[in-house]
């Protein structure tokens, strides 16, 4: 059974559609990242799941139980959801143990103490029970927040940009820690982020959000290899579009020659465009080439060339040994890769 299912969920705020007809499902013990630019509706989606806002249309169910549908609306305190906030939202007037115990009022005192001790151990904060939030480091606060959100065994864990306040040096270590804590507790989680790197490191699947909908839900690898829309392909990294014709199931022809693909291409359309990222481009000397070099920059191990091709601009790396003349046109060679073909 899916842990969470959203069906055609829409939410308007002041006549503006923030999310529209959104579908999403999260499997048991799976971490899904809602990834998208700011304003795409990802935090709103999270709030709708938590019950902090009420969507005007659609159905939300958690563990098969309907939470929001037409007149039915289960208020947040009855959804049994754990939530971790961008600012952690630790209660400043309560110490660490009291914060973790906040959601445990249904347990009796000894069970509650045992659970708090368990959680302290899980997040490796033993001995800090009596500290107040302001006496902890950012990373410690974050571990308290995750412990608090998991303490009452929620059906689902929601994380709202939890890593954005953490220094880059320790961020990925923390992402690993939190990921293994969540996996250890066997809880499904939804994680909101605008950073691809965090999403790749933290989530099992990524849901790319665009204009209030899920454009695609898939693993990182599949998103790169088989983006369903141009928006998804563009969100995952800059590139250029080149007109292309399907040559056979494994390759296309462009004005820069034949490009072979490591995955089979859709059969339906002959003509279309391929989306090419810098790492698949090789710049070659060609006096009659159709690529203009606008700028050149040395970054230590290689050069980066700012090129203009077919009215699009892109930065392309090239090995330091291969020095190209900025005044001379060049041409492209496209390496074999999983070609993104759009008809």
């Amino acid at each position, binding site marked *: 059974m899916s842990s969470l299912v959203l069906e055609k969920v829409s939410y308007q705020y002041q006549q503006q559609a923030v999310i529209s007809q959104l579908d999403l499902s999260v499997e048991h013990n799976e971490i899904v990242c809602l990834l998208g630019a700011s304003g795409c509706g990802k935090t709103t989606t999270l709030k709708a799941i938590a019950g902090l806002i009420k969507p005007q249309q659609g159905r939300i169910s958690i563990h098969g139980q309907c939470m929001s549908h037409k007149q039915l609306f289960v*208020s947040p*305190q009855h959804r049994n959801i754990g939530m971790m906030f961008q600012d952690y939202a630790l*209660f400043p007037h309560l110490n660490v143990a009291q914060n973790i115990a*906040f959601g445990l009022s249904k347990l009796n005192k000894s069970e509650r103490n045992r659970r708090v001790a368990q959680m302290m151990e899980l997040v490796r904060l033993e001995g800090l029970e009596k500290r107040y939030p302001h006496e902890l480091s950012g990373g410690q606060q974050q571990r308290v927040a995750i412990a*608090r959100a998991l303490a*009452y065994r*929620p059906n689902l864990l929601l994380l709202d940009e939890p890593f954005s306040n953490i220094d880059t040096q320790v961020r990925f270590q923390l992402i690993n820690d939190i990921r293994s804590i969540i996996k250890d507790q066997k809880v499904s989680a939804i994680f909101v982020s605008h950073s691809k790197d965090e999403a790749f490191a933290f989530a099992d699947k990524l849901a790319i959000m665009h204009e209030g909908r899920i454009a695609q839900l898939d693993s990182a690898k599949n998103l790169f290899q088989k983006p369903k829309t141009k928006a998804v392909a563009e969100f995952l990294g800059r590139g250029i579009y080149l007109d292309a014709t399907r040559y056979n199931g494994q390759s296309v022809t462009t004005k820069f020659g034949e490009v072979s693909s490591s995955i089979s291409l859709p059969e339906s359309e002959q003509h279309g465009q391929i989306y090419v990222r810098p790492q698949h481009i090789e710049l070659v000397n060609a006096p009659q080439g159709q690529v203009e070099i606008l700028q050149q920059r040395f970054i230590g191990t290689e050069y980066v060339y700012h090129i203009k091709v077919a009215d699009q601009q892109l930065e392309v790396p090239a090995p330091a040994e291969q020095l190209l003349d900025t005044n001379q046109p060049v041409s492209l060679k496209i390496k074999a890769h999983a070609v993104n073909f759009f008809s």
Partner: protein
Amino acid sequence: MSRWQVIAWSIGVCLSTPLAFLIFESLQGDSEVFSHLWDTVLWDYISNTVLLILGVIALSCIIALPLGWLAAYCQFPGQRFFEWAMMLPLAMPTYIIAYIYTDLLDYAGPVQVALRSWFGWQSPADYWFFDIRTLPGAIVMIALVLYPYLYLIFKTALREQSFKLVQASQLMGLNPIQSFFKVSLPLARGAVVAALALISMETMADFATVHYFAVSTLTTAVYDTWLGYYSLTAAAKISGIMLLFLFVSLLLERFSRKNNTIHERQVSINEEALYCLTGKRAWLATAYCALILLIAFVLPVTILLGYAIDYFDQAWSNEFFVYAWQSLKIAIWVSVVAVLLSLLVVFYQRIGANASKNVPGRFASTGYALPGTVLAIAVLLPLTLLDNKLNQWFANTNFEPGLLLSGSIFAMIFAYIVRFYAIAHGAVESSYVRISPSLDMASQSMGKNLLQTLSLVHLPLLRRGILTAALLVFIECMKELPAALLLRPFNYETLATHVFQYVSDEQLELASISALFIVLVGLIPLYIVNRSMEQHRS
């Protein structure tokens, strides 16, 4: 509609009723008394009011702008002390300072006596001496007490500007005075206008000084019309004119605040003083601050202390304790109720989802800008109506309510709540916004409902804000005079009305301990403001 919404809206409507009645009443057809006043003295009252406001504004600027500039930018002997001490005059009720200076400067006062014996003058015909009990005298007295508003706001505005702006202007060839007029002052213009609007509202609200000096303004006209002619309608109409004045001030204040936010506030705090004054200039700065402080605070308080010592036996009377207790009782009632109401309204603002969630709070706060005399009339309008209805209701029974609402301390308490609700609301709201909304969400996601969230999360975090709110309201209640004069039940005195009574009878000496007590109580909010500013800086 949730029950929180119903509660918040009822509070909003209830507390704005007096103003609504006042506006309605002032738009009613002509009353005889009002047309008589209109034909005779009302224009004098209006021009006096305007002159008073303009005079106070001008004098406040002259006193406070240099002080603000010195405090924000300069280093000179005593700067740290003067920075907070210059706020102290705010604690002085104007009528006390007015009385003391009258006593000091009139014909029989020590100054003129000394001059006469010095120069051998025999009678008033021999020399000229200014009369303090005039419009200019009132301007000076009121400005001495109200200038700290401008000083505080201006100083803060200057502090928030980056010193780099001034330094840049000086690198471009401006001297300190030029850069004050070309950079600092224009940048702080919004703050200055807001402060002046505040000062003009307070000036308009002042009743005691002008009454004592026999300068007729709109405030005294409201008072006299009600107590002299018993015409609520005419009093309401004069109040209506004051409302127009107030409305202009409020608009100015709002508008300038809006404009002010355009300027980007600097994040970092200016570490060191911009100008290090030395030599003659440094002493001049010190002398200027000391002179203002002496005139506006030290001298009056010293004289008051002198009265209290000389007349201790009469002033330390039973009356003092009785009236202090009566004031205390009302102040406690009002502060508890006002804080409770504001908590309910602000909590609704916190949880409400619709666009109109802030409206009840705005409605409930409308009473704050009302001068005490106007407020009293505004409160009497609905209460006398209710009393009439009650009396009709019980006409066939043995019970006679009489002036159950309008003639009892209920009227005073209600009026004070209407007037001071906004203070409680502001204090509670400002500590509420510091509680991150994600705490509410966290609490809810952990299975707590709204009431539990309020009691387990909000209230512990609001404790300080609630205390501050209650304290501020309490103090304002202790000081409030004009509304009390108009609304107190027969023979009922508060400390303020008691002191004012003795001021009017030229016997402040006998109430000097009460007066000192009022000054002391007035110092408490200054301490709070100062502490919060220090915290803000560190």
